[in-house]
Every structure is written in C-alpha cells, then in structure tokens.
C-alpha cells in the first residue's frame, strides 16, 4: 500500500515527467475514481471517459498539487469536477446517455457490472437529488469517504457536507417511499 508521503513523492516525480510514477499513482486511485464517476454519471462509458480525463488532468496539473490535502483527495476532487464538466457538456449537447453495454468477450464482466449496479429504485431516487446532495451522499455513503475528506473533495465545510448528507438521505427516503407507493 502506498503511504500518503510516498504518494506526494510519486506526484513530484510525475511533475518531472516520470510516467512510471504516474502509473503507480493511477493504480492506487483508478478504481475509486471510476466508482465515483459511475455513481455520479450513471453510465459506464461516460464514467470511463471521465476517469481518463481525470488522470490526464492529474498528469498535466501534478505541478499544481500543493500538498495541503492527501493526493487521493485532490484526485477525487478533480474527478468530481470532471464529472460536473461532463454533465454540463452533455446538457449543452442534449445528448442521450450512451446505453450500457457489456463486452461479451470480457469474462466475468457481467457479474462485475451487475454487482456494481445500484438497485434501480435507488438509482432513480439518486437521480432525483440535486447534485450537491447526490454527490455528498455518493462520496460519503456509497464510497465511504470520511466526512472531512468529502468536505475537501467538494470544497465545502464539514458541517455543510454533514447537512447535505443528512438531507440527501432524507430526500432519498422520501423518493423511495413514493416509489414503493408508501
């Protein structure tokens, strides 16, 4: 496991163009970045695009990392912003989301995709949340990030995150209740 100190060193090497170091940073964070992007965007292909854009930004802006937060937190923040950008771009183009597809030649892919998929009613309820509540719930409850880290990723105080998470859950409960006809 890479320690935060090591990660900062790795990132410093990335600044000098060390692609091996970049590969190491990417391997540590790519899964969670993808997961966050998938939860926010709700589409695997868009999530992969956003993951790629995230790491391109990480590579190009590694020199701007000031060490005030953990490398991971900085990367997740880039990921969330990248997803925002992608949503804005998609809205401008009025794109329909690309339907999910499974490469039939990818062994185990079906299971992996199914197990990662949220239950449809949660998916629908999450989609109804305003982005600030949805992202707080995704990061805190689905990704399990501690609230201070969520606060850094979203660039808001911890109290605000807590309030957004509570409110997000409350709204989810209401939407889920409505969906089940309660």
């Amino acid at each position: 496991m890479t320690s935060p100190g090591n990660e900062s060193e790795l990132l410093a090497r990335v600044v000098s163009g060390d692609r091996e170091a970049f590969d190491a940073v990417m391997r540590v964070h790519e899964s969670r970045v993808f997961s966050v992007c998938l939860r926010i965007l709700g589409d695997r292909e868009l999530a992969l695009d956003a993951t790629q854009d995230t790491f391109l930004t990480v590579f190009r802006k590694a020199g701007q990392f000031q060490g005030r937060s953990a490398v991971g937190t900085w990367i997740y923040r880039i990921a969330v912003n990248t997803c925002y950008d992608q949503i804005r771009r998609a809205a401008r183009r009025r794109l329909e989301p690309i339907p999910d597809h499974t490469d039939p030649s990818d062994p185990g892919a079906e299971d992996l995709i199914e197990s990662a998929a949220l239950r449809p009613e949660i998916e629908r309820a999450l989609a109804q949340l305003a982005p600030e509540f949805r992202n707080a719930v995704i990061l805190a409850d689905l990704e399990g990030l501690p609230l201070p880290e969520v606060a850094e990723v979203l660039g808001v105080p911890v109290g605000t995150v807590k309030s957004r998470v509570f409110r997000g859950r409350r709204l989810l409960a209401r939407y889920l209740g409505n969906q089940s006809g309660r």
Partner: protein
Amino acid sequence: MHEHDLDLIAAFAEGSLDDATVARDLVESCDVCRSEYEGQMAVLRLLGAARPAAMTDIERAALHRNLWTELSRTPKKATPWWYRLSYAAAGILVVVGLFGALNGWLDVGGVETAASFSEIGSGMDQPTDDGGALPLSGGDVDQQARSTTTMAAAEESASYPFADLAEEARVRRTSTGFQPMVADEGERACLTTLGLEDQQIIDRLDLDQAYLVLMPPDDPGSATVTFVASASCEITHIEG
C-alpha cells in the same frame, strides 16, 4: 419538525452521536420523528448494501491504453537550452552531411558546381584520397537518421504499459468465442522472417506505431505476449 431535530435523528440513525439520549427520546416520543428515523435507517441499509463499482479487465486495459496514447501526444517538459542546442547541432550536421552527399554524387558526374557544395561541408568532413573533403555518405546519413528514429521510437514506446496490454491480450485470448486475427500477406512474411509464424495474432494496436500482438496458440492464460512493430517488422517487446 425543526431542522435541528431532523439532523439529530439523522446523526442518531448513522450512530455518530456521542450522547444519543436526546435523539432516542425524540424518536420514541413522536410518530413523525420515528418515521423519519426509520426512513434514514432504510436508506442507510440500502446504500450500505451497494458494492463498490469496479472496472472490468477490458475496461481497465482500455483506460490505460487510451490514456497512454493521449499522454504520448502530450508535449514533454521543456528541455534545457544546452540539450536543445545539441539537437540543433545534430540537425546542422545532418544538413551539412546531406549537402556533402549531394556533392559526392555530383563529383561522380563531373559537374563543376560540386566544388562549392564540398566547400560548404569541408569544415567537419572526412579527408578523401585526393585530399579534399568528403562529407558523410548518403548511407551514413541514412544510418544516422534511422538510428535517431529508432531511438525516438524506443523512447516513445517505452512509455506504454506493455504489461497491461499483454494482460489485455491474455484476457481477450481466453474469452469465449475468441478467434485470432488473420494475417495479411505482409504480416505473414514478417512473422515468417521473425520465426513467429506459429503465433496467433491477438490484436492490432495503433500506439506510437502499429503493433501486432502475438501469442502462442497453447497455454493462453499465462503465455508470453510478443509485440511486433508492423512497419519495421521488429520485435519491440516480449511480456511474460
């Protein structure tokens, strides 16, 4: 219900209160509060049951491949002035050499103007039998240019995660319904030259250059994966 009470109940539901007495009393004393608490618990259970989203092997390999392809287009960091100067000097040498080479050809034909080309290149060229200056031959220039290209290509291709690409090939090879790609005439000739005619073409990649990804037909799970540059017909990487 007051916003403060709602937050108190939410914190109680997630178990983050140091002292839960007030919240518990609230939940037990009021129907709306209890319903709120139950709603929060239900959502926490649902969200907690969701497993983290993971990439499939092919998605991960595609991510790496696309990313490295994209990064290979990224201009590298600015090099120091003396380093750039050495490139400029090498460039001048090549140009002078080319002039010299041209001069050499013209000499054979006995064209008068060749002398002036020779003079241009005389400062750094090799002596000839007749005491004049002979620039780098066309062959030398070719060799120099080729070796520069090869080095640049090697440096570029070294930046690709061939281990990941090999893993992707193995996954592809072991997948159900896999059919190796059919070699065209040029590829067949190249593979025969390299003694790889028994290998299967698993994939064709377009990275810094075109590659054939090859694997032996047996033992697909852990087999060696060979990368052959299609244009130059050279084995560039062997993984495994």
